[in-house]
């Protein structure tokens, strides 16, 4: 089984530590993993801003880069959702894209559904609040959205519960959006900041010491607000906790 590691563009540039943690987490599970050098960006920022026609080259490049792997794994729910849900317009009945579309996984989803992992040999003795980032949550169905009347499950919580000594706090609004939303964070700056502040406050009110989640973009937005306001809370990508990174 050969895995292609897909690292979102901004994580490659700004969060190499999280990428390394992802790589090591998979490597330590004896997974044969490879990082193809020709990758750049899935095109989500442009597509969500209305320029999906401009990303055709990127989409074709993505499929070409990853088509031969058994699985494609990425530490970002929204980028995976982008490839799955919005590339269709460029590939009509294309075998390579259909393969990519069905074999791409968010890393937690991969560990939970494909590897079916049942233990992590790590301890994380902190109070943790889980931020369900919208695209991973509702598009990839990493957990049951609070709006639906179906049995509850959360892949992220299931994985975190395998970590020793961790304490998951209960939030008032479990799946409220943090207000990042890609270019929304700039074009609707006032609402974006208000939403981010409210999201952080929910974690603070629940006595969380760490905010975690499966999307670094949401965490980056909240981290920026936390640092500006000197709030006493930190963000960590869920992969760092699962990989045993201490903060």
């Amino acid at each position: 089984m050969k895995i292609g590691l897909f690292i979102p563009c901004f994580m490659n540039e700004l969060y190499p530590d999280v990428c390394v943690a992802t790589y090591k987490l998979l490597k330590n599970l004896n997974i044969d993993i490879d990082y193809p050098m020709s990758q750049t960006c899935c095109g989500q920022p442009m597509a969500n801003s209305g320029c999906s026609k401009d990303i055709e080259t990127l989409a074709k490049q993505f499929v070409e880069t990853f088509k031969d792997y058994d699985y494609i794994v990425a530490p970002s729910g929204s980028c995976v959702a982008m490839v799955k849900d919005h590339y269709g317009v460029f590939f009509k009945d294309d075998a390579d894209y259909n393969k990519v579309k069905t074999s791409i996984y968010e890393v937690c989803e991969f560990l939970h559904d494909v590897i079916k992992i049942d233990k992590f040999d790590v301890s994380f003795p902190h109070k943790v609040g889980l931020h369900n980032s919208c695209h991973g949550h509702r598009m990839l169905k990493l957990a049951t959205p609070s709006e639906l009347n179906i049995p509850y499950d959360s892949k992220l919580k299931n994985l975190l519960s395998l970590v020793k000594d961790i304490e998951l706090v209960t939030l008032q609004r479990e799946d409220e959006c943090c207000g990042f939303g890609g270019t929304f964070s700039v074009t609707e700056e006032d609402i974006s900041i208000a939403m981010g502040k409210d999201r952080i406050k929910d974690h603070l009110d629940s006595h969380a010491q760490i905010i975690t989640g499966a999307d670094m973009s949401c965490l980056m937005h909240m981290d920026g607000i936390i640092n500006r306001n000197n709030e006493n809370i930190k963000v960590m990508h869920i992969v760092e906790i699962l990989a045993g990174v201490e903060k």
Partner: protein
Amino acid sequence: MSSKHPLNAKAFVANDERMHWHDKALWFVREKRDITSKTIPEWEQLREYANSIKTHTMANLDKYLVEFEKNAQARGIEVHWAKDAKEHNEIVYNILKENNAKKIVKSKSMLTEECHLNPYLIEKGIEVVDTDLGERIVQLRNEPPSHVVLPAIHLKKQDVSDTFHEHLGTQEGNYDPTYLTRAARASLRENFLNADAGITGVNFAIANTGGFVVCTNEGNADMGANTPKLHIACMGIEKIIPRLEDLSVFTRLLARSATGQAVTAYTSHFHGPVVGGKMHIVIVDNLRSPFLKSEKYQKALNCIRCGACMNTCPIFRRSGGHSYEYVIPGPIGSSLATFRDPKKHKTLSFACTLCGSCSNVCPVKIDLDAQLYNHRQDLTQQGIIDSKKKFMLKSASWLMSHPTLFDLAGKVARKVVPLLPKSMLYTKSNVWGKNRDLPQMPKNSFKELYKKGIEDDK
């Protein structure tokens, strides 16, 4: 007036206390909706039924509208057809004129808001009183409703008290909700008793019976339709459902989605005029039929106006309904408005993080977040989005298509940015950095670390 959501939102957010009060009031309704919807095990199945019934109806709309007309006429209801708002208003006015009606009581109807019926009739010398309490409050203030179910949710009891003091002569500074409600009721009762005609909206029109249903929580539609001898009901073409049996699916979904109630306090069935009276129904297109031809936005017509998408929308809760500058605000309003007039409403599909909560909460399963995503692509194709933004995104796509150049750009940024003084980093053009710190620049990208060999430093 052009739509400019970010600016309107800025003004709403600026009053932090009121913004949070608005957010909490709507979230409270959303939570009530969650509780009641979860008492019904077959909830998700009901949504699926509702979606199927509506989709089927829209595909056969001509047939069901004609069936409805025939059956309504057989019940003594006079049926009128209006292609747009102008025709609708003229038809209503002519009916009033023929019957010498000068004083009108009107129950809540988003269609008449859309057609601007009130100002039209008032200009013709007719007195129009909105009788839904929330509608009455905003009417006295000369404001449009800010929500389809909770028209005055943007106002606090102090605002209502001031409005009633000015217009109804209540005590100044008396904020007691019971006192204010009683004052409104006394004033409205006068209006009901002296009205020459009642105008209502329509929640559901049933093709196979020729009757229609109006849902309210205050009984004001019943008062307005039964006290005067003339009842005019106004409906959009999309309000049709095929059979009486189908109604139960919608009445179970509507109130639970809207307010978290099991059913509206009044679900009134109208099947003809009161004894010695007249009943008219005006069926309006007003830019609805183009939706039927559109594959991407067709489902927007399925909306039953419960307002659940507004209550759940984190942007609506924090920016208020007026920020949308369209008769129907929130996620569904953003799609309707953008489809109808993309130039005027170009910021609305971007007033959204694509969180998807609206699509999950929608009782008729409208693909709202997908529609808003599609609108953004269409606006770009039509050349409506800002050319500077388009150029930047096009350049970014080009850069990303050239991995070596992209890597180089990242490398330069990581080297240069940490050397810059704060005053050069946090400039006016750096909107991200206005209220947020920038992430720390790492020494190396992941790609650089990988090339060096991650395993080595393990």
